[in-house]
């Protein structure tokens, strides 16, 4: 499944929830299922700057594809980064770099990552693309 179809699928899923509360509950469930983040990687090197809660994102390359592990100390933010990590995981660096989708606009969930500094969500997407760009040129 490509990036765009994953975004579409999540959008469809999120639209099933009639209000913000139930959307957040869905994200909390995603967060609770995401348990494999290694404690030793919860450090500043992998922290996404500008988010109100602490958010970590770790890229990994396997068989010419990119995978992301994610974590946050806040549940709702963690749920959202879990979705974002899954959208960009199992994709080639090219596809990530070429993707033009503005996730925050698509999901209308910018409020979760952005309040501390408006660039929280932007920084995370930039980190994903920077990593893909680096892999592509290597």
């Amino acid at each position, binding site marked *: 499944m490509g990036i765009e179809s994953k975004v579409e699928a999540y959008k469809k899923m999120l639209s099933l929830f009639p209000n913000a*509360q139930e959307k*957040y509950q869905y994200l909390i469930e995603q967060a609770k299922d995401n348990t494999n983040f290694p404690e030793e990687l919860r450090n500043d090197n992998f922290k996404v700057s500008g988010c109100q809660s602490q958010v970590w994102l770790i890229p990994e390359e396997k068989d010419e594809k990119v995978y992301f592990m994610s974590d946050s*100390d806040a549940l709702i933010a963690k749920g959202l980064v879990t979705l974002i990590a899954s959208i960009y995981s199992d994709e080639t660096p090219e596809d990530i770099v070429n993707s033009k989708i503005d996730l925050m606009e698509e999901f209308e969930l910018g409020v979760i990552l952005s309040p501390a500094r408006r660039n929280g969500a932007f920084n995370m997407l930039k980190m994903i693309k920077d990593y893909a760009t680096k892999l592509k040129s290597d």
Partner: protein
Amino acid sequence: MKEFENIKKDFPIFTREVNSKKLTYLDSGATAQKPQSVIDAMNNVYMNTNANVHRGTYVLSAETTQLYEGVRNKCKRFLNAFHSDEIIFTKGATEGFNFLANSISKKFLKPGDEILLTEIEHHANIIPWQMVAKQHQLEIQYITVNDDFSVDMDDLKNKVSNKTKIVSITGESNLSGLLPDIKTIRNIVKENSDALFILDGAQLVPHRKVDVQELGIDFVVFSGHKLLGPTGIGVVWGKLDLLNELDPVSGGGDMIEEVYFDRATWAPVPHKFEAGTPPYVEAIGLGAAIDYLENITMEKVSDHSDKLRAYAQNIFSDLDRVNVIHTNEEFAGCTFSMHVDGIHATDISLMLDTYGVAVRAGHHCVQPFHRKLGIDATFRATGYIYNDENDLDVFKDALVSSIEMLG
């Protein structure tokens, strides 16, 4: 709270919904909502009289100048200042502190002099002092805050000495609602030093009558947006003889008397401190905000805050799992910071938002004190004149449900 029951109607924002719920706004400690009269006053300038203030020899400029300078008189009355020239407009409380720190340290301080703050100061009353301390080799001391969030008066007595040249203290904590006993602190300071006494009025001035003559202080700093006025305007009040001695820290238009190619002389106080086109529309908005509060009377404003605070203290006392950071003193502001073991403050505030409840999550610009308490972040509910018991009930119920959902 009878006389307050119609106040919400004066604030257009309360007609909107958030997440399909009625707005319950409990973040006035960050910024207050604006009554229609403030919005109208600013609209009126743009629609009917707008022209740059001072020296415009035509009707519009004269009218705008009159409105703008008239706000100095309102501020003078509001603070019971000695003279309207003691009112300096800034872009906010933060700029006020930066101005005072820079101007005072250049004029009055020498290496080794001490600045005395408390552990619960807002960053705006810490960082400017840290910056000038580095520049002029000054020392900063922090008065300890007790476990019940009150100021440790013994520590104050230990730390104030003839080396202390500046004491700058909040009038109302934006974290715990504490109202430090300014008069007693001021007396201890003045008996043991010749320090200048600066009051951070950012939280206090919107809620209580601040009479600078009665308090016997040297400077007070506050912002307009927390007292129903617009952003981009703040006030520094200082004693005239001190202001006359201080030099400006910004240069430019409007603050000069005579300019030559190699030098310039300054306009008299207060204009020498106000370089460039001032935020005159915002100042006029601030004037309308002061009118609005004075029309209610500050006595009733503080009574309302006390009643809200007592009600909140009562209903928050039996909240399961919630640690409340709030002073036990008899008088305090309606400001309650909280944290829940095992749940991040931003999760709580996001969840509260789904109930239409607006509270702030974070360190509220009091990071060193959060660090001392060993907490990353808190969420904070603050009440103001347009809040009532129902808002606090809605907050409490939403909080209980949010905690349940977040596990």
